[in-house]
Every structure is written in structure tokens, then in C-alpha cells.
């Protein structure tokens, strides 16, 4: 009775059309970007060569979309089979979120016509580059995530073959995010003179990894509460409140490492300044959802759970923005704020992602509808 099934229903709802329109606007802006270059269309510059397309779409976007990774860990490694029905929708978010990240990278890189060389020029691979590892892992993971999801949209006879390979794919689907999500933290380690000492640390890869697992669970909770409400599904709060607890554990571990690592070095750069204030605010932002989500009883309330999961996502997102943009200081003459077209592209990409999600759950067996769907 908890079988996943297509939800059906009208596809071109007003909401869906608005999302498509926002996506269309992004594509129009991108045509302009490919004609005139990145300078006139974005706020990026030589001091801040990476903007929101990297810090949000790739670094934060894939983290929020890590539900597929986090739930796979829970179900296949910790063997908590009761969460199985949450894996498929989480995987859909993952496949879509990572595809959006891939698209964002493609429009962000200046010499995109050389992009195919990254996976194919293996003799030129520079294994010192954390970005090469991120690039290869993310490319592979996009493929793995779609294959893992394929039983929900491929005909049965293909699925039989897939069944045998599935454990190896699942293991790959856990290994790859472990690698690239930690490497997203390693990426900024090389900028020793630019990243503020309260954020620059050799623990960056570990901090990114632990927080991304928390964000993945929070993303899965958020996705399940929102789709449950929008598509009027059977309530899953008893399961979700337990997953919320996993977010808590990850964030508590994160806080211990984050503060402990800095304490060992005597909190370099801490004092009466704005960055120290931001650092404290960031800690609070992690501590609040960690504390809220610890209380399983209270989290049975869908409204409270939604709010706490939102806060958890926000904490992880702010941390990533800080490492990549706010705590990144290339020198006093440089400033960055995303341009309006730049933000519209990000908004458009996220809109298309949401549109694709609603389309997929209506056409394919992703979610488990209640017995009496209206």
C-alpha cells in the first residue's frame, strides 16, 4: 500500500507555467551571456572570479540536493529499511539538483567549448587539483544518480538487468558524494591569503562533508513535507522527525569540530570585528536547528519540522556562502554582488528544477500517494 505511483493530474497548472516562464527568462539571459561574455552580464570580476553560480548553484545547490546521498547512507548502509520510500523522491531531487549544478558550471566557465577535454584528456589530469576531482566526481555522480533513479521511468525489462548492478551503483552513489562534497571544502584551502582565518582550516573538507550529510537529511525532510502538502500525501511526520534527529547529530558534530579546530589554533582573527560577529551568528544558526530537531516529539508537528529543516538548510547555505564569498577577501579594491541577470539565471535554474520535479512525480512512480487521493 505504500507503493510509489505516478500522481497524475494536470501538468500545465498556473504554478508550473510561472516556473517555466522564469526558466525561459534565464535561458534568454544566457544567450546574451554567450554573445557578450561574463563581464557585462554578471557581477563577477578578477578579484571575485566565482560568484553565485558557483557558490549557490554548485556548492549550496548540490548540498541541499544531497538527500539522495544522505538517505542512501541511512537505508543501505545503516540498514534502516523503514525509510525506503523516501529514497526515490530524494534521489529525484539529487539527480535534478546535480544536473542544475552541471548546467551552471557550463554557463559559468569561460572556455566552455573545451569542457569535453576535462573527462577525456586523462593524460593531462592534474591530481593536485581539488577542482579536477570535484569535476570528475560530479560528472560521474550525475550519471549514477540518473541510473539509480531509472527504475522509476524505464520499462521493466531494462530494470531486470539493472537489479544485478544496483548494489555497486548504490555504493558508487555513496562514495562519489563523500569525495566531491568534502573536496568542495578543500577547494578554498589553497587561498591561504584570501580566506579569513576563522574560516580557513585544514578541516574544511571534513566540515563540508559533515554539514552536507546534515543538509541532505534536512533537504529530504523539506522535500517530503512540501511535496506532502502540495500533493496531499499521507503524513510521514513520524519518519521525518526521526530523520530530523540525524540532522541534529551531524550539526552537533560539525559544531564540535568547527569550534574545536579553531580553539586549537587560538581562534585566529577573532576580535571586535564584523567577521567575528558573522562567525558567531553562523554558529548560532547551526546550533538552533540542531537543538530544535533533537526534540522528536515537537518535530511531529509538520509546521515546526518544516521551520527547523529550513533553518538547517539556511545554516549550511550561509556557511558555504561565507567560505566562498563573504570570508573571501582578495584585497580592498574588489567587491562582488551578483548582478540582476546573474540572479535571474540562478532563479530560473531553480524554477526549472522544481518544474521538472512536479512533472516527474506526476508522470512516474516517485512518491507514495495516500490510499484516497482526492
Amino acid at each position, binding site marked *: 500500500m505504500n507503493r510509489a505511483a505516478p500522481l497524475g493530474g494536470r501538468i500545465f497548472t498556473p504554478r508550473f507555467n510561472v516556473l517555466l516562464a522564469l526558466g525561459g527568462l534565464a535561458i534568454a539571459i544566457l544567450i546574451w551571456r554567450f*554573445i*557578450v*561574455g*561574463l*563581464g*557585462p552580464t554578471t557581477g*563577477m570580476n*578578477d*578579484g571575485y*572570479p*566565482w560568484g553565485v553560480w558557483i557558490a549557490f548553484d554548485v556548492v549550496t545547490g548540490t548540498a541541499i540536493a544531497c538527500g539522495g546521498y544522505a538517505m542512501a547512507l541511512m537505508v*543501505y*548502509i*545503516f*540498514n534502516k*529499511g523503514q525509510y525506503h520510500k523516501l529514497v526515490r523522491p530524494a534521489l529525484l531531487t539529487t539527480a535534478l539538483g546535480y544536473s542544475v549544478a552541471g548546467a551552471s558550471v557550463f554557463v559559468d*566557465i*569561460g*572556455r*566552455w567549448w*573545451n*569542457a569535453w*577535454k*576535462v573527462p577525456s*584528456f586523462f593524460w*593531462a*589530469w*592534474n591530481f*593536485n*587539483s*581539488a*577542482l*579536477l*576531482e570535484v*569535476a570528475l566526481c560530479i560528472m560521474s555522480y550525475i550519471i549514477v544518480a540518473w541510473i539509480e533513479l531509472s527504475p522509476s521511468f524505464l520499462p521493466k525489462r531494462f530494470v531486470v538487468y539493472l537489479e544485478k548492478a544496483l*548494489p*555497486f551503483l*548504490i*555504493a*558508487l552513489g*555513496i*562514495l562519489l558524494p*563523500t*569525495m566531491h562534497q*568534502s*573536496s568542495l571544502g*578543500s*577547494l*578554498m*584551502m*589553497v*587561498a*591561504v*591569503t*584570501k580566506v579569513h582565518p576563522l574560516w580557513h582550516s585544514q578541516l574544511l*573538507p571534513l566540515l563540508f562533508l559533515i554539514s552536507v550529510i546534515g543538509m541532505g537529511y534536512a533537504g529530504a525532510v523539506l522535500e517530503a513535507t512540501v511535496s506532502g502538502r502540495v500533493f496531499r500525501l499521507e503524513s510521514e511526520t513520524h519518519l521525518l522527525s526521526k530523520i530530523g534527529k540525524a540532522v541534529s547529530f551531524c550539526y552537533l558534530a560539525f559544531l564540535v569540530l568547527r569550534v574545536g579546530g579553531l580553539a586549537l589554533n587560538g581562534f585566529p582573527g577573532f576580535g571586535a570585528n564584523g567577521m567575528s560577529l558573522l562567525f558567531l551568528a553562523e554558529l548560532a544558526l547551526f546550533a538552533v536547528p540542531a537543538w530544535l530537531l533533537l526534540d522528536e516529539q515537537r518535530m511531529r508537528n509538520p509546521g515546526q519540522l518544516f521551520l527547523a529543516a529550513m533553518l538547517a538548510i539556511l545554516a549550511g547555505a550561509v556557511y558555504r556562502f561565507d567560505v566562498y564569498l563573504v570570508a573571501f577577501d*582578495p*584585497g580592498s*579594491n*574588489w567587491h562582488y554582488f551578483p548582478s540582476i541577470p546573474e540572479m535571474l539565471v540562478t532563479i530560473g535554474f531553480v524554477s526549472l528544477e522544481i518544474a521538472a520535479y512536479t512533472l516527474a512525480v506526476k508522470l512516474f512512480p516517485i512518491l507514495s500517494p495516500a490510499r484516497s487521493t482526492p
Partner: protein
Amino acid sequence: MDRRNLLKVIFAGGAAAALPAAARNQRTAAPDSVGMLFDSTYCIGCKACVVACREAQGLAPEPKDGMHDVQTELDGQTKNVIKLWKDEKNPAVFAYVKQQCMHCIDPGCVSVCMLGALKKTAAGPVTYDKDTCIGCRYCQVACPFNVPKFQWSSPTPQIVKCDLCQSRIARGATQPACTEVCPRKAVIYGKRADLLEEAHRRLAAHPSFYVDKVYGEDDLGGTSVLYLASVPFTKLGFPEKGKRSGPSITESVQHGVYQGFLTPAILYAGLAAVVIRNRKKDKEADE
């Protein structure tokens, strides 16, 4: 049972990650590698080097007012600039500084470049190959001196930076354009070891005149372009953040964790084993 298996996986992976070796030392300058020495106290700010660089590199001037090519920063068309620093309180105190690629001994840009478009040659210069560059701009993030520049207003942008006139020297020139034209010999070209010796000779001869430091001797792992000045180097825009290069930190952590590919391989084998076991148990439970 499953938890014990998981612990095994984590321990195996962790043990691999904790193996020693891999921690990488900083690179040292190749014995005969070349570089430049810029002595700020010799420079009169004539910018002959800026013009010569444009000509040698085929970079069009950028007259912002329609008449004068007064470039104040490196950019997508400028590989060399002269900057002026003035003491706000005492206008009599000022210094010129030349900015171009520092040709680091352990360059961040080279360490992070995915397909090796940026390379550190044994001779000293850091060179760029546009054919393996995808324009990701990680080199810009990694460079502590903000040297590599991107052509933001081009649909087919490249990374632009000084390569110590490699193409010019390949055609038979004995030195880069900037050092050749400098009327005051404020910037000179030669073997880094000789330049370092010359810099220390000047420091010793006029100790009260200079700040007692050769910038680039060992800053951030050392650079092939060395600087002398009479004002603090931070005023001239140079980061004074220790002797450790960025890559020596990153690569130690990255290779330390990965151990060639041993850690991911063990982790993968362990994960696959746990997944297969758990699924088998599930099936048995179903039956």
C-alpha cells in the same frame, strides 16, 4: 551486525587515510631557473616597461580618455603595470612598484589547474596554454597576488598573465621586453640565485635605505621575481602571510587523505560489501 560492518569500513578507510608519506614539502627553486629583480628605489615611474610589454605581447593599449594609456591595474589586456604608493600623511614619501606575474616557485595557479594549462617550467616561468584551459578561473582564486586576469568582456575569453616573454626569448631575445627597456635598470633579468645575491648585496650596502627584506625570497614558498623597497611591502600590495605556499598545504591534505586512490578504493569495496549484505538480509526477511 550492520553497524559493526560499517565500523570496519570506516576504520579501513580511516587507516588508509592516516598512512604517513604524502605530506608534501615545499618546492625549491630549480638551480638555474631565471627570474627578475625589481628595485623600487630605482624606479622613476616612466612606464617604458608597460609600453614595451604591450608591444612585445601584442596587447592593444587601453586609452580610457581616448588619448593616454594610463593603466592602473593588471587586466585582460595588461600583463605589466607600474603602480604608485603615496603616504597619505606625508606626500614626500612614495614608492613605485611594478606588478606582473611573480612566477612562484610553488605556484597556486599551477597546483589547481585541472588539465595543466598553467605550467611551471624548469627554467622558471609559469606558462599558459589556452587549448587546455576551460576558463574555470580557479587560478584566480588560488593566486595570492591576484595576477591571472580573465577577459571578462569576450565571448572567447583567455587567462592573461606575464610569461617572462617566453615567445620573445624563443625568437632569440636575451631578456624580457620590460627589463630590456628599463632606463634605470630598476628591473633586471637573470638567474634567480644571482639576483638574490645581488639583492642581498644592495641590502648590505645601504641598510638604512631599504626595508630589510627581499620580498619573494621565501614568501609563500618563494617567487622567481624578487623585490626591494624602501617602504613596507604590505603598502605596495604584497601579502606578508608566512613562508608556506598554498599548494603545500592543500596537496598535503588532499594526498594525505586519498593516498593515491587507496582510500576511495577501500571505502568503495567496503560500502559495496555492506550494501550487498544488507539487501540480502532484507530479501531473506521478505521471504
